[in-house]
Every structure is written in structure tokens, then in C-alpha cells.
């Protein structure tokens, strides 16, 4: 459906495009040509499916969570368990696809940006699997709040480069990855980790994640006997959300709900909510989309307890879904998300990533709106192992002496 409504190639309505230095255009065209051919190539698609099945562990299951649902107004809540994928999040779906494309293009090196570290870990994993050199750019602030993932990437053989410019978070890691790519594009593929950036990245990354929604839709029909009333997914750049939303876009009765990092509240100015009226359309990182920016077009730094949602811009297809009204977007504040994280852990024994906890907090709101009889599908995009330290600090679970509280 979205394919037909594109007014120009590489656009989702007015959004998207390819705002990049000329030096990168040839590489983007090469990538587009290869990924379109690969999509039609049974050899390529077969290899990707084999990796999904034997390496990632797909299909990921769905889990109904009745004890958590008691806090969701009596609606039934079903989780799509991307947290059970190898490497702990949905990110592997896209990375395996792009790593296979890297080899197909004859390139030997991959680079990537990462915020929470999940995309970096996934990229480092795929690079190890396929024998590619790997460099990960990560904002200095994020290397500190996600230090466990830095160690994981290094264990996997990747080089992790902390970025000290600008806000020293995800957006600056993207800038640095682009700088590397311009200089090394002949041998290097930039494994962009979300559904933004210059064309063809938004469409290509969405297509690699579309399997989430394709599986989930069938699982809902087979196991629950109906489609959900609403789907909740967190939205940083928006890859897990586009992945689970896309197969449902034509199901007009299914509400698509994106949850953004509300930080300390939209009114505080310290947030990552692009769709709550403060962001305006502009260009960042190669795409025309909603951007948190000041009156002179300078990017405003975002804030979120979740490193993976701490990004001032959002994928252009989300911008279109927002403007068309097909999807709804709401901010979830840091403390709401952390409360949802605690709740799911203690009612169901599932520790979600802080990013995914925003989707759970969304389900708590929407469930109350729908009431008993409603069914909410939640994209549980990642597991919370990486967040144990941050959550322990948030809830004050660490004792000074390291002992168990009496």
C-alpha cells in the first residue's frame, strides 16, 4: 500500500529522499540495485531464511501475559518476543540481511552506529559470522550508560569508537559513521540500523524487519483466533515499529501505536518525542522527516532514559503514517517506562529492554482505553539484560557493600 502511495521513488508521501554528499550517491545506487535484485533472488532469500531459522531462532514466539494484563484495564496482552532472538533484540533481522548484501557487493568491511548498543552488537555478531571487518561508532555518553554492550562488541571482534562530538549520543554516532563511509565507501558498507537515512535505507531496513509483523499476524490468527485491536511498539528511529506495523497497514481496524521517549515530559523540553508538536519537518541524516530543531534549523538534542530512543529524528515512513493518521504516536515518560519494566519483570518473569518498556507502558494506557475484550499486541523488541545496571540504579537496588539487603 505504501509503495503505491509514494509520489516519487524513495519518498513516503512528502518524506524521505536522499540528502547526502554526492560522494555517497554512487554507493547508494549500487546498494539499491543489489538489494532489489537480492529480494528477487531465491538463493539470497533462501540463505536469509536459513539464518533466521538456524541462527536467530525465528520465528519468534508470541506470549500472552495475563498477570501483566491485570494492569492493562483487563484487555488481553500478547507479546511478540523479538527479545528471544539471538543477540537479544529485533536488530539482528536487518543486520543479517545487510551483511549478506555486503558480501554480495564484494565489500569486506562494515561500519555501524549504535545507541543502546543492540544494533552494534547485532552488527558485530553478523560481521563475526561472515568474516567481515567491523567498526562501531557509539556516542561517549552511550558507551558509559551501556558499557556491557561495549564489552560484548569488543568480545565479538569489533572495534568500538566512542564519539566525543556534539551531544555524544546516537545522532553524533550517525554523523561519524557517515564520515567514515565517505572515506572508505569502496570497501565498506554502512549497516544503518534503523528505518531512516537516505533512500534506500528506510525501505530496505523496513523490508528486513517486516518478518516481525508477517509472523505476528499469522500467530495472532492461529493462536488467539483474531487480529489485535491495537499494536504497540516503541519508536526511536522506528525499525521494530515499522517491522511489526507494515503487514497490518491494510488492516484498517488494527490501531498502530508508536510510543516515543517522553523523557522528563514534553513540557520539560527534555524528551525525544518528535510527534508531540515540537518537531517539524526538516532534513537530518539524509532524510526529510520530523526533526527536533530550533528556529534556525539546528538540531535540538533529545533526552530519554532509553539510549535506543534518544534520537532527535524519526524514520520518514513514520512521518507519513503520522500525517496520514494511519498510526498514532504518544510520548511515554522515563518513569512510566521504568514502572512498566518493573511490572513485566515481576508479574511475568520477563525483563524487557528499557526501549521496549515504552511499548509496554503504551499497552497499559491503550488496554485501559479498550477495556475487557480488547486485545493488544506489543512488540517486545529487546531484552533487558543490558539494562540491569541502569535499572538497578533507577530503583536503588544496589547496596553500597554489594550484599543482599537483610
Amino acid at each position, binding site marked *: 500500500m505504501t509503495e503505491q502511495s509514494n509520489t516519487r521513488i524513495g519518498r513516503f508521501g512528502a518524506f524521505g529522499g536522499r540528502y547526502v*554528499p554526492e*560522494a555517497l550517491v554512487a554507493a547508494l545506487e549500487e546498494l539499491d540495485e543489489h538489494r532489489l535484485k537480492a529480494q528477487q533472488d531465491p538463493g539470497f532469500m533462501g540463505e536469509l531464511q536459513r539464518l533466521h531459522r538456524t541462527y536467530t531462532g525465528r520465528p519468534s514466539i508470541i506470549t500472552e501475559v495475563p498477570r501483566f494484563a491485570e494492569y492493562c484495564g483487563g484487555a488481553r496482552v500478547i507479546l511478540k518476543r523479538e527479545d528471544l532472538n539471538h543477540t537479544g533484540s529485533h536488530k539482528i533481522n536487518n543486520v543479517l540481511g545487510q551483511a549478506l548484501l555486503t558480501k554480495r557487493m564484494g565489500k569486506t568491511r562494515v561500519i555501524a552506529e549504535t545507541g543502546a548498543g543492540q544494533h552494534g552488537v547485532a552488527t558485530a555478531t553478523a560481521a563475526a559470522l561472515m568474516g567481515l571487518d567491523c567498526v562501531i561508532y557509539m556516542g561517549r555518553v552511550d558507551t558509559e550508560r551501556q558499557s556491557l554492550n561495549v564489552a560484548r562488541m569488543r568480545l565479538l571482534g569489533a572495534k568500538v569508537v566512542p564519539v566525543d562530538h*556534539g551531544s555524544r549520543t546516537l545522532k553524533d554516532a550517525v554523523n561519524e559513521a557517515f564520515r567514515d563511509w565517505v572515506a572508505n*565507501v*569502496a570497501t565498506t558498507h554502512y549497516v544503518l540500523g534503523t528505518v531512516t537515512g537516505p533512500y534506500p535505507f528506510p525501505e530496505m531496513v523496513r523490508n528486513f524487519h517486516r518478518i516481525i509483523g508477517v509472523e505476528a499476524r499469522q500467530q495472532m490468527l492461529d493462536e488467539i483466533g483474531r487480529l489485535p485491536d491495537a499494536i504497540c511498539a516503541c519508536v526511536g528511529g522506528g525499525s521494530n515499529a515499522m517491522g511489526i506495523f507494515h503487514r497490518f497497514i491494510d488492516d484498517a481496524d488494527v490501531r498502530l501505536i508508536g510510543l516515543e521517549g517522553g523523557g522528563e515530559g514534553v513540557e520539560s523540553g527534555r524528551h525525544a518525542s518528535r510527534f508531540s508538536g515540537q518537531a517539524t519537518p526538516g532534513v537530518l541524516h539524509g532524510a526529510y522527516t520530523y526533526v527536533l530543531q530550533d528556529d534556525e534549523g*539546528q538540531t535540538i538534542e533529545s533526552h530519554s532514559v532509553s539510549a535506543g530512543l534518544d534520537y532527535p529524528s524519526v524514520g520518514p515512513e513514520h512521518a507519513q503514517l503520522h500525517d496520514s493518521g494511519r498510526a498514532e504516536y504518544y510520548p511515554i515518560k522515563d518513569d512510566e517506562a521504568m514502572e512498566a519494566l518493573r511490572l513485566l519483570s515481576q508479574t511475568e518473569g520477563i525483563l524487557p529492554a528499557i526501549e521496549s518498556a515504552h511499548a509496554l507502558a503504551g499497552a497499559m494506557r491503550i488496554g485501559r482505553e479498550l477495556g475487557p475484550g480488547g486485545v493488544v499486541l506489543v512488540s517486545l523488541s529487546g531484552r533487558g539484560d543490558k539494562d540491569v545496571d541502569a535499572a538497578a540504579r533507577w530503583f536503588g537496588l544496589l547496596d553500597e557493600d554489594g550484599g543482599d539487603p537483610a
Partner: protein
Amino acid sequence: MTRVSEVLRATKAEGRAALIGYLPVGFPSVGESIDAMTAMVEAGVDIVEIGMPYSDPLMDGPVIQTAATRALAAGVHIRDVFTAARAVTKAGAAAVIMTYWNPVLRYGVDRFAADLVDSGASGLITPDLVPDEAQDWIAASDKHDLDRIFLVAPSSTPDRLVSTTAATRGFVYAASLMGVTGARESVGEQAAILVERTRAVTGLPICVGLGVSTPEQAEQVASFADGVIVGSVLVRQLLDRTDPQDGLSRIRELAGALRRGMNR
């Protein structure tokens, strides 16, 4: 014809390449940056490329990133670009603005073009806007008779050299290498090859930028290009200066040396 085109015609008639110097407005302060631009004009720079600092300069290396970050922290505004362009024009050189696209988009493309004309600047260099996405800018620059300086790169395909130069006015900015701004040990053969490939498809002047930092490199590039663009090493002088006077004398000395290199 814009002033940039007049200057490039005049330098060609003199049998030499033009010297194009880049400095971002607002670093270390608006006043000091404009003084530095004026000083380099007095020392022999023919065209000043006035940079608009931007929060996410993904084509720039560490030196220009640092200057941009400091200029923004010090409160530089878009309007300062126009003030700088007036000063440069008054000092006798031609001015072009180098800016990432989002600030222009936010300001309003047509409004930006109108204020540009007013300031005496000749046009825009757009490092992250390729002609494919530039419909609004092409319309505004046609309407206001401004130069639109697009980039070509060693990776540009033959087709793109044709389409990009066809959309360009004023001069073609040839990126000497694959990479971001910043001084390099040497300016490779890639630059000469790219200029030759570009000449085959356009009659426009071709100016070479990225990596040029020494009089020797400027001399080398001047032997095959119509203009030599020098940026990071000039900005470096202002980063390393001990006080404003020191900054101006460093800029004068370097600009003079570059120009003498090209006169050889």
C-alpha cells in the same frame, strides 16, 4: 553574471587560478570571523566561502566540527552569514555561502535566496544537497539569479557528472578525494583525474577543494584547476591563535603564502 563568475573570468584572463578561502562565520566570534575574512581578502584571496555552522556537519572533519560547535555555543545566527557576505563584498572579493541544507530549509528557501542577493553574495555551495533533491533551490536560484554550486566527487559516475554539472551555475566544486574536510599529506592524482573527467562534460570553471593546506599543494592544484579551495588549515589558524591580533596575522601570512604558491 554573478561576482563569482566575474572573478573567475578575471583570474582566467590573468592566466592563474583563483584562491578561494573558507571560514565559518561566528568563530571565534562573529566580529573576529569577519575580520579574518577581510584579512584574507587583503592577503590575496579572490573568493570567500562563508560557512554557516551546523549542528550535524557530516562532511566535515574535526577542525571545522570544532569551530562550528564553538560558533553555535557562542550564539551565531543565520543572519550573521549575510553580515559577513556584505563585509567580504565591501573588501573587494566575491562571497559564496557554504551551508548544509536544513538551516536553509528552515529559513525558507526563497527567503534565503532573497536575503542572499541583498547581502551581495553570489550563491550557495550545498555539501548535502544533490540536484536530484534541489527543485526548490533550483527554482529560487533561477528567480534570484544566484549561483548554485554542486559538488562532484571521484565516485561520481559519468552520468552523474553530466546531470550534476548541467544543474550547476558559477563553478563546479570538485572534491579532491573521498573523505571529509581536513588537511592531508598530499592531494592525490584523483583530483586531476576528476577535473579532467568534469572538463569533458562542462565548460564551467572547476574549483578543487578538500585536503589542500600548503602552498605546494595549492600550486599543484592550480596547474589543472580554475580555483583552489582552502578551508580547514585557515580555520586551524583561528583555533591555534593566542589572541585576535595573532589570529589575523596568521591568516594573512597563510593566505599570502598560498597565493604566492599559485602565482609561481
